């Protein structure tokens, strides 16, 4: 099923030439990376992190600033961004997990750190251009065997580039969750005290989950910034976090790929029915409430159980 979907996505640009439709796919892919990685810490490890948007935004800014200052490629710019996100994640995660913050306390404290990062970026005018944001004119380049160096420019190139990012994200999450690490995450989600008496170092594995999730969000953030050509403090805003939570809840927490469905619905729907910002926010809210009330297992989870029942 998954491989079929991937094959379909790979040939889709051959059939669909509409830039409008492909653009929705690109946004869905990049936000899908966010949703899939957020699901690692939220759905699989059970920690409601509000730091995901911060990792996304911090990485976008640092990648762009490095590229702009040092005139290096996107990939070289990505390195200090990932390194910074890794360091910040370990710091924030260590503080939260050392103090054994759980559930809403963890959410509030990570939100506070996220807001802290947003306010620093918003007020550091000389570097970040404050609320006006930064224009990104550079484009990533990719060296492909046989094809030489390609510049990722135009919707079709971005379609494949962002699809590759999504596949990478899904692959990393799948491999992690299939290993012993995934069992530790599940144990922590289901019962921390029991996990600890079985010898699982809950501090270490929570931190690992937080770190991997944030690094994948960082990759998504840098790609998003270079795709849209514009980076602003709202990248780190609470709305961004809420959108991602909505995608995961709608798609379903139980599977790696479920959140991608959520990302598609919540990215595509508002564009397809052409809504204003306010109406879009209301649609999000309504979908979120209805999902929690009617489909606690999300679209994918509900579909899977219907199929099993049939």
């Amino acid at each position, binding site marked *: 099923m998954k491989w079929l979907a991937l094959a379909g996505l790979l040939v889709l640009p051959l059939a669909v030439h509409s830039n409008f439709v492909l653009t929705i796919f690109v946004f869905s892919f990049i936000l899908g990376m966010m949703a899939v990685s957020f699901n690692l810490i939220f759905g699989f490890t059970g920690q409601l992190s509000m730091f995901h948007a911060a990792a996304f935004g911090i990485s976008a800014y640092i990648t762009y600033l490095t590229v702009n200052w040092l005139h290096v490629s996107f990939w070289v710019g990505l390195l200090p961004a990932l390194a910074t996100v890794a360091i910040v994640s370990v710091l924030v995660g260590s503080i939260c997990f050392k103090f054994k913050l759980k559930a809403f306390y963890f959410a509030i404290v990570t939100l506070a750190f996220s807001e802290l990062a947003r306010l620093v970026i918003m007020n550091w005018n000389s570097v970040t251009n404050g609320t006006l944001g930064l224009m990104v004119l550079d484009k990533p380049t990719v060296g492909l065997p046989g094809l030489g160096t390609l510049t990722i420019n135009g919707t079709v190139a971005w379609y494949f580039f962002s699809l590759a990012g999504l596949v990478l994200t899904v*692959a990393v999450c799948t*491999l*992690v969750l*299939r*290993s*012993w*690490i995934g*069992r*530790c995450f*599940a*144990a922590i989600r*289901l*019962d921390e*005290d*029991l*996990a*600890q*008496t*079985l*010898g*699982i*170092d*809950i501090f270490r594995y929570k931190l690992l989950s937080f770190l991997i999730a944030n690094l994948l969000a960082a990759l998504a953030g840098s790609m998003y910034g270079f795709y849209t050509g514009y980076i602003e403090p709202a990248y780190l805003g609470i709305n961004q976090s809420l959108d991602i939570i909505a995608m995961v809840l709608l798609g379903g927490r139980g599977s790696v790929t479920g959140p991608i469905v959520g990302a598609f619905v919540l990215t595509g729907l508002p564009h397809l029915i052409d809504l204003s910002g306010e109406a879009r926010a209301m649609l999000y809210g309504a979908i979120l409430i209805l999902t929690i009330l009617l489909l606690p297992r999300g679209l994918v989870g509900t579909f899977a159980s219907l199929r099993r029942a049939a």
Partner: protein
Amino acid sequence: MLLEIQNLTRRFGGLVAVSDVSFRIGEHEILGIFGPNGSGKTTLLNLISGIMRPTSGRILWKSRDIQGWRPDRVAAVGVVKTFQNPKLFLELTVRENAAIASHLMLRHQLGTRRIAELLPWCASRRHPDVDARLDRVLALCRLDGMSDQLAAGLSYGQEKMLGVAMAMMCEPELLLLDEPASGLGDAEIANLEAVLADLRAMRTTLCIIDHKVDFLRRTADRALALQQGVKIAEGTPDEVLHNPRVIEAYLGRPHARA
């Protein structure tokens, strides 16, 4: 000496739950700890397993002070505890519960080589040793017929046995059993005793607390009794049970004189 407890004390505000308790557990021994409800038995096990920190005193595991260690570190050196009211991963199957409990076994066997599990082409994600032990432990705990059943659907007695199975998957050198017989019917107690006999045959060191006198007398090699956090007797189970202070603690003063 495997475990040595020296002058262990735990206060909760004005209440002294465990007061200046000292004892030892030797290798392959089964120690029973008696005591009426509220005598500090569970607190004592929680102190040893790192779930609570003692107010004072020392806990020596193979001459090494493990007092104040986190529960996962205590479990990692081989001291594993079960819970009186079994704690399980209810959404998972019996086998999945036991598989999660194989964490320490894999860590001890593979160490950093577990990283290889992350490689997409890694074929050795299945661990035959772990699978074999899973089968053995589930059979030992009479759970082999219900591997794929959800833990939420087990009876109370089966839940307790799964708790023991999960602790066994940690390859404990010392297994601390917190009231394994409480709440069980006669048939389930007979089953538990058969499991404990198997554990004895496997030369696992056990420390069992319970207030079921007959059960402990049949099971333990050596016993000690607690009352209001204080150790009041130590010796063979029969010696302890005939100790006037123990009889008084259980039945009241008139019976102790008789």
